[in-house]
């Protein structure tokens, strides 16, 4: 079936976008055990910064590292200035702050750069493969996602800072007792999440076009991917992202009548179903605790 193959490839290409975002979501979850609803907006804002620098004539290959670095600093700054004062307020208060951040960043971006869609150049040039089903850019994006994933895996698994971050996220009090500077670990987590978000934004923008609302739905798909794969597992998140892309496209194509209208609902329904049977996601680790 040609159409099936086409939709599979398209699904993988689209899934790459979600995977990219899901990775950023998991990153912040590793660091703070929260889901940051402003994550997508932060990525969008970073991308606008990159766009602005390009518009000012800064060379492309300088813009990318600069943006990632700025985003890292921005992420740390947000943690220090906005999140830290909250202290140990309840989870829901944090969620409200994330919503507030979301509103602020979205509104600011629209205020500064307007809502007209803007093309964002790809690092991988124009052109496409597989009869146009995957653009060079999308292939490049998948490759970058995989690279970032590998780096994250190595970071969390084999570096002391990675271990310290995991420990700090899991049990801050105990982490302090082994001398981990928990506050900085959290700030570092925010910084890394923002930096990965910036990479995600820069990779996604050439496909969906840059505008303040571009991340609205992608974040949702990113969440979906992360949850499907397991919030504790970067590998799972990437896999989940691809799965969501594929499921969604196949459902939209092959379920007659309502399929097209219900692409998203069907994908979400499948995810909830997975969760019901495997509450921590496909790759998620169940933390065994004694009663």
């Amino acid at each position, binding site marked *: 079936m040609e159409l099936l193959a086409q939709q599979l490839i398209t699904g993988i290409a689209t899934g790459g976008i979600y995977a990219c975002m899901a990775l950023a979501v998991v990153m912040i979850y590793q660091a703070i055990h929260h889901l940051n609803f402003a994550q997508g907006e932060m990525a969008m804002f970073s991308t606008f910064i990159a766009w602005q620098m390009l518009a000012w004539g800064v060379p492309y290959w300088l813009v990318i590292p600069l943006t990632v670095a700025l985003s890292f600093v921005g992420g740390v700054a947000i943690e220090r200035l906005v999140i830290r004062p909250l202290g140990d307020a309840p989870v829901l208060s944090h969620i409200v702050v994330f919503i507030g951040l979301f509103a602020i960043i979205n509104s600011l971006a629209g205020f500064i750069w307007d809502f007209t869609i803007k093309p964002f150049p790809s690092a991988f040039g124009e052109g496409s493969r597989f009869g146009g089903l995957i653009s060079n850019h999308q292939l490049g994006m998948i490759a970058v996602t995989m690279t970032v994933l590998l780096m994250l895996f190595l970071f969390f698994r084999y570096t002391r800072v990675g*271990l310290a971050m995991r*420990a700090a996220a*899991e049990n801050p009090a105990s982490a302090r007792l*082994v001398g981990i500077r928990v506050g900085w670990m959290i700030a570092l987590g925010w910084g890394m999440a923002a930096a990965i978000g910036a990479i995600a934004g820069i990779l996604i923008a050439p496909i969906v076009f840059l505008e303040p609302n571009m991340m609205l739905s992608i974040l949702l798909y990113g969440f979906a991917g992360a949850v499907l794969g397991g919030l504790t597992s970067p590998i799972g998140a990437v896999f989940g992202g691809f799965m969501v892309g594929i499921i969604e496209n196949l459902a939209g194509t092959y379920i007659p009548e309502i399929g097209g209208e219900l692409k998203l609902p069907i994908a979400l329904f499948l995810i909830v179903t997975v969760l019901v049977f495997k509450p921590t996601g496909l790759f998620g680790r169940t933390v065994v605790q*004694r009663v």
Partner: protein
Amino acid sequence: MSMLLEVTGLHASYGDFRVLHGLDFTVEKGGISTLLGANGAGKTTTLRALCGMIKRTGTIRFEGNDISSKATEEIVRLGVAHVPEGRGTFTGLTTEENLQCGAMTRRSRAEIARDLEQAYHWFPRLRERRNQQAGTLSGGEQQMLAIARALMLRPRLMLLDEPSFGLAPLIVQEMFSILRKVNQEEQVSMLIVEQNAGVVLELADNAFVLETGGIVMSGTAAEVRDNETIRAAYLGY
């Protein structure tokens, strides 16, 4: 003997609720001290106040440095290891990762590897469980892990909060003998909070008896053990 830890006028409170009213005590270098007293006397609070887990006032000197306004992680970095109540295991990490976390403040990889071996030497059960999630360990194993993790810091002072809690008598004996060895072989001083006064007074050099936020008696372990009034009134055995 020189003093490792000198505490004067330690006050601490939870919100409006004052728990400690001006404690004065010291821990000798290389010694084991124990803090005794009934439930609610403020023993756990004292340990938490010492390593900055709660707000406190007063002077706390550790090896001459004033640590009374330092953050927990900084105090830990100076060489104070706290084995908290409830053990504070990173349940989602493996046993070995927990131990690695204990050495987070140290640099030399070779030394850390050596200490890891040493920890497995003290607690062979942990070696069997090295790749197991710490949350799946039994209570006794978790307590051992907590102590082993604290040792990975190469501390000069260990604060132990009820190390015998929930442990079988045999294990308690085993653990206390390890603590003694650690104290003797590695020159680690200890301040132990314990309900099980009988056992801990065997181990300790000095003892302080706490009642409602103040010290009512201090002396050598033997003095406390032999003081009938104290035994009857505060230790109840």
